[in-house]
């Protein structure tokens, strides 16, 4: 234990300490700023490259280029067999479908786990938690076969339908945590009023759980938008049901090379929805990401 005597023994002048503190602070700013620039530069480069004509993309480093070619966007939009609007629509369909599915089914399950008592509940709860840890690839082959038997391969259904059955156990868990923060007095009050479980769930719990619902919706949207593996497997055969990620992955092959500007333009567009969500829901997103491991 260092006593204050020793401290004063090695005393330095106050101003020196203040200076060194300010210097470290300055250093921290430099590092953080530098790091931020490094982190964000690839994205900035992507945007700037999307406006550059082909021959300048890989020859100039700067973000600003002598020539601007917004035509990359319109050319890229129509570069494939179908305009990108089709692919964006497909992506949108599965994302919205997944969002609705998750919101409904996960909240139902979460309410049951958080608020209701029923037989064998611990067992089902453990099963649900186990489902979160399960690598999806163990399921993918039998699911594929199942969807093949149902005739759903080559449609958007395999990407949407499971969401209506609470297969994203992570969000069940997220909602459970949130619902547990809702005071029990409300439950008791509702019981006295003779409110049924469903109407209590619908009228009281859901509105109060709005932050968890919104977080679920946003993360579901983002993860579904980016889910390349699932889309790659199920959306074969017909280019008209391709989603944006699949279309992007085929882009260079299908357009005869030398079209990186267009590719980057479409890439930028494909990232915009996520970025948009981020801008609007920043606080919620960051809160959601920060608290997935912490008790509220």
């Amino acid at each position, binding site marked *: 234990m260092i006593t204050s005597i020793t401290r004063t023994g090695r005393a330095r002048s106050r101003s020196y300490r203040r200076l060194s503190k300010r210097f470290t602070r300055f250093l921290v700013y430099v590092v953080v700023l530098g790091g931020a620039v490094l*982190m964000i530069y690839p994205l900035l480069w992507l945007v700037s490259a999307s406006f550059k004509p082909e021959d300048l993309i890989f020859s100039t480093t700067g973000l600003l280029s002598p020539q601007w070619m917004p035509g990359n966007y319109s050319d890229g939009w129509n570069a494939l067999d179908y305009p990108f609007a089709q692919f964006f629509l497909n992506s949108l369909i599965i994302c919205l479908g997944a969002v609705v599915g998750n919101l409904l*089914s996960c909240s139902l399950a979460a309410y049951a786990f958080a608020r209701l*008592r029923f037989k064998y509940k611990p067992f089902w709860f453990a099963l*649900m938690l186990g489902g979160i840890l399960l690598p999806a690839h163990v399921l993918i*082959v039998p*699911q594929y076969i199942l969807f093949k038997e149902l005739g759903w391969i080559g449609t958007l259904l395999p990407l949407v339908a499971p969401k209506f*059955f609470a297969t994203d156990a992570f969000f069940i868990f997220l909602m459970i945590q949130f619902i547990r923060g809702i005071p029990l007095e409300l439950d008791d009050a509702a019981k006295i009023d003779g409110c049924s479980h469903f109407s209590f769930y619908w009228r009281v719990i859901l509105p109060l759980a709005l932050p968890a619902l919104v977080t679920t919706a946003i993360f579901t949207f983002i993860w579904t938008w980016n*889910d390349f593996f699932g889309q790659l497997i199920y959306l074969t055969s017909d280019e008209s049901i391709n989603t944006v990620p699949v279309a*992007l992955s085929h882009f260079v092959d299908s357009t005869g090379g030398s079209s990186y500007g267009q590719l980057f333009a479409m890439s930028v567009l494909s990232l915009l929805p996520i970025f948009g969500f981020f801008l609007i829901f920043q606080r919620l997103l960051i809160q959601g990401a920060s608290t997935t491991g912490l008790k509220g």
Partner: protein
Amino acid sequence: MAFTPVEAITREAREALPTRKRTRARFAHEKRENAAGYLFLLPWFVGMFVFTAGPVIASLYLSFTNYNLIGTPAWVGWQNYLAMFQDPQWWDAVRVTLVYVVLSVPLKLAVALLVALLLKRGLVALGLFRAIYYVPSLLGSSVAIALLWRQIFDSDGLVNQALSLLGIHVTTSWVSTPDTALYTLVILSVWQFGSPMLIFLAGLQQIPQEYYEAAATDGAGPVRNFFAITLPLITPLVFFNLILQMVGAFQAFTPSYIVSGGTGGPVYSTLFYTLYLYQEGFGDLKMGYASAMAWVLLIAVAVFTALAFLTSRYWVVYQDERS
């Protein structure tokens, strides 16, 4: 793909499950609640059995068969597993994935913690910096970013251009050289440290300031502070992030597929396990073999997770145990 809040799971496993005493429980009421519970869970039950538990069992069965989607599965016993261990590409996939996990996860966590430490000091425009560091992890798993990465590390890409500005002239295509291709993917993964960083940041902000003030009166410097106070208190989050990132890294697919053009090359240097699974199962339609591969992955992830759990008692310090 879903994340796994294992930290909470560990706590749940330790605590009793969420049951509550109801002083006004009546038999009929309980029965109604029982029925309500099962009704509410009905969608989940369907999902669990049709899309989760059922497929798990089915894939175990399939792993002992040969099945190419035409006709019926043909029982072959352990053949798929034996073939796996003799398949040089399988070993390539295992090696590549292990290297990826072992490199990217600790690096990512270390950077995340470091940046979180820097940010928690309460800088001006903290929100902006936090946002900038977080955005890559939101966008990073997309096809668009993987395509970008492939071009950035190509022979005339951004990285080489930046290096030449510093006076280092290289013409190697980092993504097309077997010795370096995997590291570009590691860098891509580490670039996405924003998500664990946020978790660390939130955790760091929860450490009571009194601890540091107490240490200051004892004359502790910042380094001592870190090792004596910060690090121990943050270990639950380190553990949580470790599990989360590790499980995610084992299942990575998009970067490998896009950067290598679906080949896992050059010379299998970027053949992630899931990519090889995809090639075998959905390219060659060897569904039995792919199922066996999936089960080996499952077991590997389970083993690593269990190892992490088991060793956690030696280095993870929970607040509620510090009494």
